[in-house]
Structure formats: structure tokens, C-alpha cells
């Protein structure tokens, strides 16, 4: 609860920085603020004070606190990644406040327990991101990315709202727990139509196939740093919302949505991995692979296992976010030097051995190779799902993981076994070296001590 106030307060502070001229102090202030929010989260842990504040509109229970901590950690790492993006911008304070407002929405999504807060959280998260995606004003690609994101986002919101309206009509309440209690009483048919519409809308939001077509274009067109934010913080937040809605809210109506969701997962796995393997740009490959990771996290939801599902998704979200941030650090520098195709990675091991090593470990983690965090993330998802009726999905997921290994390894091969097309060494700033080191250490620590997160 306090974290939410701290982050939204920081957003307003960022706006004041323009007027009172403390722009230079803003960056450290934001970092300190995020750390303070993290500390506040830890003090609230196991202390149920803020639960049911505000008439059960928002519940910061332990699950919500754990997920919001993951989001805050990722956001902290992201701010380190984005430091020179911010210094190069003319409208510096606007960017800060927009990112912080989006973060407020993300925190709300971890803890909502009412349809009103779900809807407002999604919109508070999305609207600043539409602007950020379009923030390169003279670049038509960036404008288009923002516009596509906006149209698709509002279209999905309309579906979400129609679903909410139908569910409200059947139950007479917006409260998640009250809806859950009412499902057992028997509902009219249009209630289930409402659930399916909300499922479609949420699949749009987390970009699962067949509602994924906007994601690669939007990710590719946005500035790389913003894409890093979209594929980590935003994705995690959308997933927590998805999980809370379907496990807590509609958990007792699985017969309606489980089959549809299994189909969506299978389709996402096949489409995303096949297309990712065919890409020549690493940025676009990461965009498609993020759809595949979305499918893996959806498998965690499909397991409908109150304990294992949440833990598996928590671990997956953390492992995926950290490795992605690490990968983006290298991609960002490489893109700045030359471009974002596989060829630009050629011979990186000679041009900057440390960056190549960092990229290697992050890619291995994303591919799910043992000892890294990514392996255990996939392992936990599989163990959660193995008790359910959807065992055939496991087979498909394993096959598709192998396809995934192929396109991640392609980056590694380019870095280590190909002759460099650019001879000059790749320079990396100190802060980015530090960030890469943190990401690598986190990936390895999470991989070696996987039970550390699960014991939470």
C-alpha cells in the first residue's frame, strides 16, 4: 500500500522538478524512492494491516506484495538501463513522470480486488505507455507504434468493459470475492460470455496469439529502452492481473475458460517460436520470444493450482524480467553502435568479452538451459501443470523450447564464432557494466538457489 503512494508521489515530484529546477537531483531521487518503496513492501509483509483498506477496492496481501516487489526490482534495474536515454531527452521530467505513473498502474494491478481498480489500473498503466511508445516525435515508426498500441489497447479495453458489464449484470457486484462466492449459485449464460470476453481482452493485453499481431510491430517501432520496459514491467503486471482475475475471481468456473486458454497457449507457442526463428533482427526476435514467454506464464495460470501456480509465475516473472533487462542492456549498446540485426552481434566476444559473456548467460537463461534461472522457471511451470488434464501442452512446450534454443543460440554463435563485421570495440558505460553484472549474478543466484524465492 505504501509503495503505491510512494511511487505516485514520485511521479508528481518529477513534474515539480521542472518548475523548481532540481532536474539533476531527480534521477538519484527516483532510485532512492523505488528502494524506499521496496523497503516499505518488506515491512508490510505478513502484516495484514492494509488489507481491505478502502472498502476492499485494493488488497495488498502477501501475493500482491511479492509481485509488486518483483515489479519494483525490475523497475529499479530498468532505470539504471535507461539513464542515458533520460539524459539525452529534452523533455526529461515528462518521461520520468510518465514512467512513474505507469509504474503506479502496474502496482495497482498486483493488488486489485475489484473490477473498478482492475480497469483503472490497466488504463493507468497503458496510457503513459502509448505516449512513451510514440515518444520519438520525428520518427514515423515510433509514432505508428504508439498509435497501433493505442488503438489495440482501447479496442481490448472495450471488450474488457463489455465483459465486466455482463458479469456485473449477472452478479450485481464488481467485487472479485463476491463474484467468486456467487458463481456457485448458478449463473445465466451471458455471465460466461462475459468471462470469455474478459479472457479475450486480457489475451490482447498480454499479447497471446491469436491476439498478438500488434505486439511485434509496437515493440519494434518503440525506442529500445521503452521496449525493455514493455516486455518486463508491463508484461509482469498484466500477468499478475490475469492471474488474480482468473484464479481468484473465476477460479471456480474453470470449465468455461480452461479449454479456450489451452488453445490460446498452444497457438501462441507455435506461432511465436516459429516466427521468432525466422527473424533477422534481434530486437524483433526478442519481441516474438516475449510472446512465447507469455504462453509459458499462461500455462502457470492454466494449472489452477492455488499454491504452485502463483509461485511458479512469480519465479518465472522474476527470472524472465532479469534476463531480459540484461539482454536489452547489450542490445541497446550494440544498436547504438551499429544496428539490431544478428550481423551486428558478429564477433562481439572479441570486441567486448564481458558484454558477450553477459549476453551469453542472459540468452541461456531465456532459452531455459540448466543452472540458469530460466531452466527452473520452466521446470516449476511444468511441475505445476503436470497435475492438470492438459499434459499434451507439456509435450508441445518442450518441443517449442527446443525451437527457442535455436534462435537464442544463433545470437551466441554470432557473438563467439563469426568474424566481426565492425572492428572497433564496443564501449559500455560503467553503469551499464554494473547493471549487466547485477543481472548476470541474479540469473545465476536464482538458478543455483531456486528455493529462495519459493520459500517466500
Amino acid at each position, binding site marked *: 500500500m505504501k509503495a503505491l503512494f510512494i511511487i*505516485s508521489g514520485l511521479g508528481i515530484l518529477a*513534474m515539480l522538478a521542472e518548475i523548481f529546477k532540481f532536474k539533476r537531483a531527480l534521477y538519484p531521487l527516483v532510485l532512492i524512492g523505488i528502494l524506499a518503496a521496496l523497503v516499505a513492501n518488506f515491512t508490510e509483509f505478513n502484516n495484514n494491516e492494509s488489507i481491505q483498506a478502502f472498502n476492499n477496492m485494493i488488497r495488498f496481501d502477501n501475493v500482491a506484495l511479492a509481485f509488486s516487489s518483483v515489479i519494483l526490482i525490475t523497475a529499479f534495474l530498468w532505470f539504471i538501463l535507461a539513464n542515458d536515454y533520460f539524459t539525452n531527452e*529534452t523533455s526529461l521530467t515528462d518521461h520520468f513522470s*510518465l514512467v512513474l*505513473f505507469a509504474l*503506479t498502474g502496474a502496482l495497482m494491478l498486483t493488488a486489485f480486488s475489484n473490477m*473498478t481498480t482492475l480497469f483503472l489500473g490497466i488504463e493507468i498503466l497503458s496510457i503513459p505507455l502509448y505516449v512513451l511508445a510514440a515518444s520519438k516525435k520525428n520518427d514515423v515508426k515510433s509514432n505508428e507504434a504508439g498509435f497501433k498500441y493505442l488503438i489495440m489497447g482501447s479496442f481490448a479495453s472495450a471488450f474488457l468493459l463489455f465483459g465486466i458489464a455482463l458479469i456485473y449484470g449477472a452478479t450485481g457486484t464488481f467485487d472479485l470475492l463476491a463474484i467468486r462466492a456467487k458463481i456457485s449459485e448458478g449463473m*445465466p449464460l*451471458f455471465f460466461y460470455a462475459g468471462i470469455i470476453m474478459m479472457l479475450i481482452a486480457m489475451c490482447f493485453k498480454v499479447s497471446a496469439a491469436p491476439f498478438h499481431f500488434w505486439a511485434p510491430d509496437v515493440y519494434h517501432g518503440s525506442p529500445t529502452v521503452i521496449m525493455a520496459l514493455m516486455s518486463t514491467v508491463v508484461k509482469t503486471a498484466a500477468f499478475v492481473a490475469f492471474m488474480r482475475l482468473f484464479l481468484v475471481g473465476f477460479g471456480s468456473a474453470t470449465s468455461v475458460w480452461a479449454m479456450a486458454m489451452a488453445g490460446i497457449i498452444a497457438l501462441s507457442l507455435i506461432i511465436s517460436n516459429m516466427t521468432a526463428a525466422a527473424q533477422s533482427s534481434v530486437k524483433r526476435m526478442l519481441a516474438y520470444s516475449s510472446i512465447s514467454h507469455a504462453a509459458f506464464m499462461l500455462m502457470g495460470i492454466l494449472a489452477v493450482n492455488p499454491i504452485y501456480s502463483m509461485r511458479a509465475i512469480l519465479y518465472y516473472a522474476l527470472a524472465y524480467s532479469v534476463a531480459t533487462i540484461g539482454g536489452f542492456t547489450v542490445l541497446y549498446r550494440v544498436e547504438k553502435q551499429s544496428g539490431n540485426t544478428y550481423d551486428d552481434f558478429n564477433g562481439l566476444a572479441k570486441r567486448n568479452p564481458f558484454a558477450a559473456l553477459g549476453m551469453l548467460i542472459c540468452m541461456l537463461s531465456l532459452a531455459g538451459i540448466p543452472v540458469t534461472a530460466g531452466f527452473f522457471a520452466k521446470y516449476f511451470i511444468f511441475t505445476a501443470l503436470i497435475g492438470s488434464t492438459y499434459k499434451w501442452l507439456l509435450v508441445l512446450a518442450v518441443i517449442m523450447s527446443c525451437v527457442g534454443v535455436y534462435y537464442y543460440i544463433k545470437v551466441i554463435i554470432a557473438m563467439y564464432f563469426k568474424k566481426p563485421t565492425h572492428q572497433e570495440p564496443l564501449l559500455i558505460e560503467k553503469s551499464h557494466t554494473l547493471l549487466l553484472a547485477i543481472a548476470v549474478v541474479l540469473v545465476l543466484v536464482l538458478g543455483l538457489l531456486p528455493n529462495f524465492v519459493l520459500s517466500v
Partner: protein
Amino acid sequence: MGYSITQWLFGILSFLAIMFALMVVFTRNPINSVLYLVMTFFCIAGHYLLLNAQFLAVVHIVVYAGAIMVLFLFVIMLMNLNQDTEPQKTLMTKLIAGLIGGVFLAVLVGTLKGAEQLSFSQTGASQIGMVKNLGIVLFKDFLFPFEIASVLLLGALVGAIMLGKKEIK
């Protein structure tokens, strides 16, 4: 058994709303589209009055017809888009769009089975749409969403200004 005034009004307003909504989609000139959309909004406001939600009806007119549509008109005028030279999508796309819409409508209508048993719980005029009741609910039960909506508006404000202003060197 004849129809009551309410039923007549409901029928007429629904017919007009659907007609104007179709015109929004099928007119080629954006300005005409805006005006038809405003008409649709007035019909929906009429529906709100039938539901005895006066405050909602007034806010609806002020916000949608008064603010949002004026913004649309401004942008169309500023960009000088009031000629109907819009290139058309291929017939195929249109057919597919229509087909998806039709299937979707059929599914929704199909799920209406069982809705007939639900009836309005009270026959007298309902008081929930009165400003006093709305205010009490908004500031008691919905205090948190109300407060957090300010962050949403602030974000949109900052975003729109950031995109609109020129780069400062």
C-alpha cells in the same frame, strides 16, 4: 394489450441510436460521422433518462457531446480532413469484418437465454440515479478509484502536452 409511453420511447430511441450508429460507420465524410455520433449520444442520453439516471444523462451530454466530440471536430478542422477522399479497404476485409461482427452478435444473442427471468427488482421509480445517492456511494465505497483516477488524468495530461509541444533545444 397496447404499448405504454415508455415502451414507445424505448423503441424509437433504440431505432434512432442504431440508425445513427450505422451512419457513423458508413458515412465517408469524417465531419458527418462526428455529427451522427453526437446524435447517437443524444439517443443514449434519452435512454439514461428512461432509466431514471438524470445525473448520468447530463454528465454524458456534457462530457461526450460537449468535450470529446468538440475535440474531434477541432482535430478534423485543424488537419483539414473534411473531404471524403478516404481510400476504401478491400471488399474482402469489409466482408470479413462484417462476418466476424455477425458471428459475434449471434453468440451474444445466443447467450441471452436465461436473461428473461431477470426483472427489475422494484416497480416504482428508482432513486439510485439521484445526485445525493451517487455522491454518497462515490465518496464512501469508491473513494480509492476516485482518488487514483487523478493519476490517470495527470498521466494523460502530461503525455498529451509532451507530444504536442515542440522540442526545446
